[in-house]
């Protein structure tokens, strides 16, 4: 899977919570996309995401820097599908974006909370909008 490396200093800066006004309008748990930073390698991250997709019985399709994970069972608004996109700032500093690409937002958030976040714990440095937790 090819990763996207054309991120620049301004992309890094735009990660700041001090610049993210969406929090004025929507709670974190209503968003259709979440981001996290990781200090792990690209292959470590893709491997973890692959495991999660397998556990959730999601079919994985890779398109360039994008990992598409698609469910088959119908939910409230059709099958849940999640896109994972990995951006490299340095070989040991990545940004991962998880976006709902189809299905119900509530279901997406529930799946994130119950299944995805716990499974990613080892590789997540910090979730967007939340400070890094000292472990």
């Amino acid at each position, binding site marked *: 899977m090819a990763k996207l490396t054309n991120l620049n200093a301004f*992309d890094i800066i735009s990660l700041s919570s*001090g610049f993210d*006004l969406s929090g004025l309008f929507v709670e974190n748990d209503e968003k259709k996309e979440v981001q996290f930073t990781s200090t792990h390698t690209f292959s470590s991250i893709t491997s973890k995401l692959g495991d999660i997709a397998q556990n959730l019985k999601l079919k994985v399709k890779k398109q360039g820097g994008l990992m598409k994970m698609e469910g088959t069972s119908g939910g409230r608004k059709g099958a849940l599908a999640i896109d994972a996109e990995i951006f490299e700032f340095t070989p040991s500093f990545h940004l991962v974006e998880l976006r709902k690409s189809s299905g119900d937002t509530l279901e997406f958030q529930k799946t994130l909370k119950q299944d995805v976040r716990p499974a990613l714990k080892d590789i997540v440095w910090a979730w967007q909008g939340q400070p890094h937790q000292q472990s």
Partner: protein
Amino acid sequence: MRAIRNCFCLKKRKPGFEEPSILAAETHFTVNEVEALHDLFKKLSSSVIDDGLIHKEEFQLALFNNSNKKNLFLDRLFDLFDIKRNGVIEFGEFVRSLNVFHPRAPEADKIAYLFRLYDLQQTGFIARDELKEMVLALLSESDLSLSNDAVESIVDKTMMEADLKGDGKIDEEEWKEFVTNNPSILKNMTLPYLKELTISFPSFILNTDVKDLE
């Protein structure tokens, strides 16, 4: 005898208040959306000091859940929202500033606004030092540390691409070119939620007499 029009007339005017119809005419928001923004503004502006104005602490509370948290980017954003530069954000300033973040606002406006945000010393240029300062601020905010070499390399790479004239700083012309080639930079300048205000703040809609024409 004064005719009773709508509840805005009966309230004592807070400083910086502007009529929703005027703000709607001059922005991408409808009157109902401006009124919904007023609901939000009232909530934010009364959270620490209840005076109908958004103070820095209230802005910090809204974005970080911590009224004392200092942040370089929030400071810049606050200064830009504070159009009159009197240390507080008034309702009119709030709506006019959010207007730039509207999905229908012209991209050229967003590009220019972002340039002013990043021009920390307001010199009309984004200097290499300012860029490095901002990268370091972000890393510190996220509790991340990269080696100085890694930071220098990230800043160098960006400057090489953006600073076409090679003078160690990015001017507005170079900035426009750079953003055109790297549109991801503009991401924070559009808030899709601004198109759904009347869904997020429906309580006002039940009380208004004004029907949107669109």
